């Protein structure tokens, strides 16, 4: 009985929440799976305020004194503005380990021996609570993730391109 009771309660709670959800409907409700910002042509599947933080990081890179960081900013902007059909973009993802952002990789074409499985950068809940969502820190991390996206840094960060890009772009001077 002790093993069955939690099961019964959990299933009951699920059905109850479904019943509650059944009573809520509004024309502008966001449905799971609907992109939030596609109406503006930006492929950022998060709340607008969160997309603004990502966009501020991109702007930081685009205005950086270092040309490499500006190029990383352009790559990040292209990803941010990619049509939804490409699968590129920034997506809120379920937390993995303690990561703030990440890219799913597999052995492939990259100079690191790995390639991203898609053009998507996962943004994890811990990023928003990291205390480093300012444009400078965000932009530097975006530059790191671009190194995974272009195949220059696989798993293990063995080429060092990811951390090097992050460190370079974290510095506000060239």
């Amino acid at each position, binding site marked *: 009985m002790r093993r069955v009771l939690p099961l019964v309660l959990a299933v009951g709670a699920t059905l109850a929440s479904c019943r509650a959800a059944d009573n809520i409907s509004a*024309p502008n409700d966001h449905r799971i799976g609907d992109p939030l910002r596609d109406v503006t042509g930006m492929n950022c599947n998060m709340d607008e305020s969160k997309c603004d933080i990502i966009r501020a990081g991109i702007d930081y890179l685009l205005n950086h004194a270092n040309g490499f960081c500006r190029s990383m900013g352009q790559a990040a902007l292209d990803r941010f503005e990619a049509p939804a059909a490409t699968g590129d973009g920034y997506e809120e993802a379920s937390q993995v*380990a303690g990561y703030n952002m990440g890219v799913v990789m597999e052995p492939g074409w990259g100079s690191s021996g790995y390639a991203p499985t898609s053009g998507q950068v996962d943004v994890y809940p811990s990023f928003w609570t990291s205390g480093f969502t300012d444009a400078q820190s965000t932009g530097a991390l975006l530059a790191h993730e671009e190194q995974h996206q272009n195949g220059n840094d696989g798993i293990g960060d*063995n080429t060092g391109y990811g*951390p090097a890009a992050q460190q370079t772009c974290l510095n506000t001077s060239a």
Partner: protein
Amino acid sequence: MRLINPRLHWSACLVAAMTLASSLGAQRSRLPATEISQLADEVLRVVAAPQRLLAGVPIANRELAFDSKRTLAAFGASTATDTAIRLARPVTAATQTVLSDCSQMRPTVCAGLGQRAYVWIEPISLTSSDAVVRANVAWVDRRQNRSASGSAAPAKGFLEGFSTKLRLVRDSNGKWTFVKEEGTVTS
């Protein structure tokens, strides 16, 4: 204005409830610590091979800081003692606190982890004969600041990591064996 057909909505809810029931049922397939140990050894063989490089350093030249407590808790064996996992592979004991002064966002000394690689394992799905687990590995890349550091203090670095999903099956002898990787997230 209703956006979803009510019949479809309730069908989806019933499927969700059945999936939840099935998932809770699967979680009851808990493994004894001896089996978690053997499974963990097999996982470490795959994701933490001694020759594998992390930030240019072979794992053989780093110690593995294995978080038994976190791994046991993830497998639903949180009441087991931390020493319940006995690995064939030499590791040092660690908890999440070794990462407390580490950051993916800013270079830090990350003294608790030092040169070691922090590892823990969590089940994604688990039955008596089939397991999908996620192995999480974290380390610090200190290469960027090594030259700026004095000789005594460790150089600051970014916390890096990867998490790999692995499928394992249990053979007729009860031994868990790696089958394939199912995707790796890198931070």
